[in-house]
């Protein structure tokens, strides 16, 4: 037998303190679990003694989905058009937004919103215990607005696939075939009207009449009609971008009057779009000098040299033909009704000072056309519509605040946006990239407005004007503030647990737990007598401590969590049993109660330690592996195992030391030796 007995020589008072400490721990934990009772006590004390002890927050346990009933929703985040390295953070943004929504809007006690990645897909799990109406919840989450900022997409459209090329070729072959038929039949004497009736794809027209056309809309047909007479039928096929036609010119009429002119512009500081540095007086004197110099012949040359209009050095100030209403009133008035080749007086507009030379006047014709039309197919018909816009990364995620605002000048109702730091940086980049270009604001996938950027915006605030009424703006601001999602979401999994099912599970599990505890207590006392009793006390303290920890940390209690907890009770018992068996052995070998006790704990410890560590290893992997059920179980089991190591080694041990100090001497050994045959006691 090994003579080296390692035990702590503690004196009685040290042990007493430890025992007392354990009892206090017990009471504290009880209070944590049942604050209601503690509050009653506190209130009583407060009444009697007028000491103001604050009452404890009376929160219940955090009940999980299966115990309380509620909803479990899984959403998929649509991250396809977000660059890979930003996906995770976008989904985090979604998580935050949904959580805000759910907390605020639904009055749910403790929503659990978490992101998860499954393979390449990003998902968000939303657990709403206590929710009565799941479709309400789904709807509310679904209403979250998706706000995106996009810039013009200048990427090339992709090439056609072979299949698509074949598709287009086939279609156009078909079209050509039809047209050939038309021409043949007309050669054979059929009239255009008969062809229209038989072949034309414009079924909605009356006799193929497309009305009066201008040069802009149907340039090819117009060109032919210019040299044709009324009533003529084109002998050839006229090809346009979207199809082929054989046409008849029905009649002619006058179109709008148009004027052509050249001008010299001298703009001054403060004029619209002006980049020159002249002052108003300087500009005026300059234009007056030019006025003295200018003639019809040198007009272009002078324009090229002096005009501040961008591009004037090439164009010579030529504006081409324009219709009424296209130029500002002051400009138009100076040229509209004067004879050709008149040079105007100095004209002042918002743009600066002008000299205008009228170079021509015309009234263009419009032609009435009827036609038989066969459509053709082009690449743009087959390719998916080119997104005019592409993502910038700026979205609702970086939105700090939205407010309703009113433009002081125009009185227009607007929505003003404030971005957070990340958003401010992003926004300033975007605006500096896109000066003089459009940046589009999309809400729920629809374009809300696409203002032109005047200058880089570095203070992180933007304004959306979109013809809002006060009500509309207010509603939008509300939605934006309660959370604008950076990406769209789609629900892929829902689990509703009826509350009553949860209730039943709760009560039955609770009862099962109690029964389990009582059975074990009974067993311990039968087998180990006094030690058993001590261990039962220790087990009760253990349970209370574990539950208090659950509540304190806020572990959500689910059915599986309770199962893990109950299992850990069994394992706590195991640790005690290891010690007691050892104790029996030591006593049998004739040691005193005290030394036998110490020895028992020392000897039993390696087994307890190794066993519990392997269980903990399994738990670690379970926590990593699982979600929901699995994690709840593993967390409860781990906590239970850890606490049980504590209660066995510290609490049971010290209780035993304490009580044994009263029972020294071998005659008390019978209290511990349970099922050992009497002959063995010496």
């Amino acid at each position, binding site marked *: 037998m090994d003579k080296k007995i390692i035990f702590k020589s503690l004196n009685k008072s040290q042990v007493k303190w430890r025992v007392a400490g354990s009892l206090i721990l017990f009471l504290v934990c009880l209070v944590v679990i049942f604050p209601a009772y503690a509050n009653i006590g506190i209130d009583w004390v407060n009444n009697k003694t007028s000491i103001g002890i604050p009452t404890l927050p009376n929160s219940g346990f955090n009940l999980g989905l299966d115990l309380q009933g509620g909803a479990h929703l899984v959403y998929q985040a649509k991250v396809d058009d977000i660059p890979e390295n930003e996906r995770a953070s976008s989904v985090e943004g979604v998580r935050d937004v949904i959580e805000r929504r759910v907390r605020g809007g639904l009055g749910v006690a403790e929503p659990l919103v978490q992101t998860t990645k*499954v393979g390449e897909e990003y998902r968000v799990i939303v657990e709403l215990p206590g929710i009565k109406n799941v479709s309400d919840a789904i709807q509310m989450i679904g209403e979250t607005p998706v706000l995106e900022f996009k810039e013009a997409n200048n990427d090339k459209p992709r090439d056609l696939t072979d299949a698509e090329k074949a598709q287009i070729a086939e279609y156009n072959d078909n079209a050509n075939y039809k047209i050939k038929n038309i021409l043949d039949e007309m050669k054979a004497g059929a009239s255009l009207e008969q062809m229209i009736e038989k072949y034309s794809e414009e079924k909605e027209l009356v006799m193929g009449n497309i009305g009066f056309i201008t040069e802009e809309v149907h340039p090819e047909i117009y060109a032919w009609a210019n040299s044709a007479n009324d009533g003529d039928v084109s002998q050839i096929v006229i090809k346009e971008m979207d199809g082929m036609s054989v046409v008849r010119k029905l009649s002619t009429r006058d179109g709008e009057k148009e004027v052509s002119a050249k001008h010299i512009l001298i703009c001054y500081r403060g004029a619209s779009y002006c980049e020159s540095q002249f002052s108003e007086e300087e500009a005026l004197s300059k234009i007056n000098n030019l006025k003295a110099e200018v003639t019809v012949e040198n007009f272009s040359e002078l324009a090229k040299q002096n005009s501040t209009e961008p591009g004037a050095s090439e164009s010579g100030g030529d504006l081409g033909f324009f219709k009424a209403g296209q130029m500002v009133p002051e400009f138009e008035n100076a040229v509209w009704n004067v004879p050709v080749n008149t040079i105007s007086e100095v004209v002042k507009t918002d743009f600066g000072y002008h000299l205008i030379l009228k170079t021509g006047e015309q009234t263009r014709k419009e032609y009435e056309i009827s036609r038989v039309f066969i459509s053709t197919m082009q690449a743009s018909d087959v390719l998916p519509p080119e997104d005019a816009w592409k993502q910038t990364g700026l979205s609702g995620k970086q939105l700090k605040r939205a407010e309703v605002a009113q433009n002081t000048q125009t009185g227009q109702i607007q929505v003003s946006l404030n971005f957070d730091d990340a958003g401010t940086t992003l926004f300033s980049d975007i605006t500096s990239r896109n000066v003089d270009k459009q940046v589009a604001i999309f809400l729920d996938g629809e374009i809300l407005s696409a203002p032109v950027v005047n200058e880089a915006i570095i203070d992180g605030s933007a304004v959306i004007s979109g013809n809002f009424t006060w009500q509309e703006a207010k509603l939008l601001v509300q939605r934006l503030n309660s959370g604008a999602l950076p990406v769209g979401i789609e629900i892929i999994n*829902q689990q509703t647990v009826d509350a009553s099912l949860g209730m039943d599970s709760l009560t039955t*599990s609770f009862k099962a*737990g109690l029964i389990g505890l009582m*059975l074990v207590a009974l067993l311990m006392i039968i087998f180990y007598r006094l030690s058993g009793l001590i261990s039962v006390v220790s087990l009760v303290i253990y349970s209370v401590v574990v539950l208090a920890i659950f509540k304190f940390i806020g572990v959500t209690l689910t059915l599986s969590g309770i199962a893990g907890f109950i*299992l850990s009770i069994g394992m706590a018992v*195991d640790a005690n049993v290891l010690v007691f068996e050892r104790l029996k052995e030591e006593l049998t070998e004739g040691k005193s109660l005290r030394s036998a006790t110490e020895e028992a704990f020392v000897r039993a410890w*390696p087994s307890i330690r190794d066993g519990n560590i392997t269980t903990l290893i*399994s738990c670690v992997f379970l926590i990593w592996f699982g979600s929901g059920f699995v994690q709840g179980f593993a967390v409860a089991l781990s906590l239970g195992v850890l606490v049980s190591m504590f209660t066995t080694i510290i609490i049971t041990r010290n209780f035993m030391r304490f009580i044994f100090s009263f029972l020294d001497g071998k005659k008390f050994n019978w209290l511990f030796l349970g099922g050992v045959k009497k002959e063995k006691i010496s």
Partner: protein
Amino acid sequence: MNIPFIKYSKMWLFISGVAAVISVIFLIMWGLKPGIDFTGGSLMELRFAENRPVADEIKAVFVKSGLEVSTQNSGEKILIVRTSFLDENKHQEILTNLKEVTTGDITEISFETVGPTISQQLKQRAWMAIVLVSLGIIIYIAYAFRKVSRPVASWKYGLLAVIALIHDLLIVIGVFALLGHFYGIEVNTPFVVALLTVLGYSVNDTIVVYDRIRENLLRRREDDFGVLVNAGLNQTLWRSVNTSFTTLLTLFALYFFGGSTIHSFVLALLIGIASGAYSSIFIASPLLVVVEKWQRK
């Protein structure tokens, strides 16, 4: 007390071997019956306030919408319906249709939809986890038992513990393959969790026995390894029985008094832990002796 466990090592190993092989055969023949977590789909539990319609009537509602369906009665008023994946619209549509063929109220007690994408992940991770846990355990035991590398190397203790453990898992799986085939009992995530728990717990049990053997190795001078092991078994016998018994007791309490949703889970645990207790004594230890004998040859 000196029960000669080791003397009959061959017999125990033979019985256990046969049991394991039978389990494997069951598994190959019938496989486990996968639950909704693995196959994906929708699981609906309905309570009918008045008469529960005949199964065929209910099925007709689903078939009309082009869905696969199977039904299960539960008690007097409850019906469990299993069908292919329903999106929310379809779900509501089916409920409306069902209400039309029923007199009285229908309450939907629970509705669980799992798209097949989720289940694939679960499967892979389950296997991963089991492998990792086994490795973790072997490594830890190799380290903890490093002082008793004679006559048997410490890592072998870990390996044998894992073998005993695999036997336990196989038994549980075999039983559930049987139950799945004859009673339609399904395995879901809880089953996997039960397996993992059995894993940790069974090794725990085996370790306690090995631990005693280790202590004996360190303290006693005994040439016959077999005698040493046998002594260790006897010394820890009472403790093993007690421990397993108390744990099983709590599980029985859970089984009979706990919620019905965890029944198969608890059953798996019961079988696994009972087997774990058995394997520590009748497999892990005899194997040690056998290995030691082989080494000497």
